[in-house]
């Protein structure tokens, strides 16, 4: 025979049990402040203002639902052999991130170290405008709405293959597109993050 108070207290106890282990212990135990590397720099570095805006674009468009940002360690999976990172990701890589964009799907490739793997701004802009230009056969949607079509010549215009847009029209990245690319370029997990904690 179960009494209501047994049920209520039992239910409360079981949920508090896991809440302590999975919420409180990590909240108090996982590194929450940047470390100082041997070269004196803080890690992880603070994002530039533009890159921080780009992170917001990444968040509001839902990039995280197809791209993870976590490199598996060398003993698990083939991420390092694929060139997706130079080491497995560590808790320190995510210090201060709100939210951490770890992701759970790889419909597209991992982006934890994309800034190292693909540093070219031009490439990222072309890829966002139409993924088929750089990655034929990709199922990533085009993000044409991050670009303006303007009449006449513009020095920031993308160089597109003949016939992509009408003659005399230039495709110019918006501030949102440029910010997103700045964020992608800033996504780097350097190999050596040995250092001391400030705490």
């Amino acid at each position, binding site marked *: 025979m179960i009494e209501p108070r047994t049920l209520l207290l039992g239910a409360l106890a079981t949920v508090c049990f896991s809440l302590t282990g999975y919420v409180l212990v990590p909240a108090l135990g996982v590194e929450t402040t940047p470390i100082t590397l041997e070269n004196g720099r803080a890690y992880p570095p603070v994002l530039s203002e533009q890159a921080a805006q780009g992170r917001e674009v990444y968040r509001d468009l839902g990039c995280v639902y197809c791209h993870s940002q976590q490199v*598996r360690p060398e003993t698990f999976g083939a991420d390092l052999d694929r*060139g997706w990172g130079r080491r497995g990701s560590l808790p320190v890589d995510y210090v201060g991130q709100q939210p951490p964009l770890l992701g759970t799907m790889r419909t597209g490739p991992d982006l934890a170290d994309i800034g190292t793997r693909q540093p070219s701004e*031009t490439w990222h802009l072309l890829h966002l405008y139409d993924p088929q230009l750089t990655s034929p056969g990709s199922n990533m949607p085009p993000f044409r709405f991050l670009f303006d079509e303007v009449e006449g010549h513009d020095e920031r215009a993308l160089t597109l293959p003949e016939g992509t847009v009408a003659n005399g029209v230039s495709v110019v990245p918006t501030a949102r597109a440029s910010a997103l690319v700045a964020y992608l370029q800033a996504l780097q997990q350097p190999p050596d993050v040995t250092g001391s904690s400030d705490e």
Partner: protein
Amino acid sequence: MSDLDEPDIAALHKAVLREQKEPIEGREPVPIWMGAVFVVLIAWGGWYLGRYDARFDTQRADMQPLVTEVKSSPPSEPNTARGDAAMVERGAELFGGRCAACHQATGKGLPGVAPPLDGSEWVTGDPERTTRVVLHGLTGPIEVAGQPWNGAMPAWGATMTDAEVAAVLSYIRTAWSNDAGTVSLEDVKQVRDAHADRSAPWTADEL
């Protein structure tokens, strides 16, 4: 809904009238075999917990050897004997992961971004020059296969080992219509050492 607050026989739902009794529980015992299976399962759980507890160190990430111990070289060093097919094969893998996004799997390059490698004199020419481009990058105007280009190739020296650079070079020099022979680990090491203090990317003029 007032008719339902004070139900009378006429307002009773016929569906309720045909209902079975409210459910109750039987008192059959838990089968012995099931209890035994649960005991074995819980014992396994204890073993797994002990095996992978990582001493409950909250700083130690899953499947990482040790939190501060970062590997110094990539796990797979290809066989670097000159002309080894395995090296070219490894080079093709590396090319697919790191170079194909710009230069494309076809080696035809990407208009406005990256020049072709297939049929490029910069690839099939002096391997020392190509090695410098891969190690330190390239910036500014350059003419490839008769076409002018102006872009930026990133430096790969910091993120790829000599063996990996040699594998990629060997691949691009022998892939598609290129037929220029492979590059060895030692060749790459020599170039790296000769330009150890180089940090800026090369320009076409310097090359």
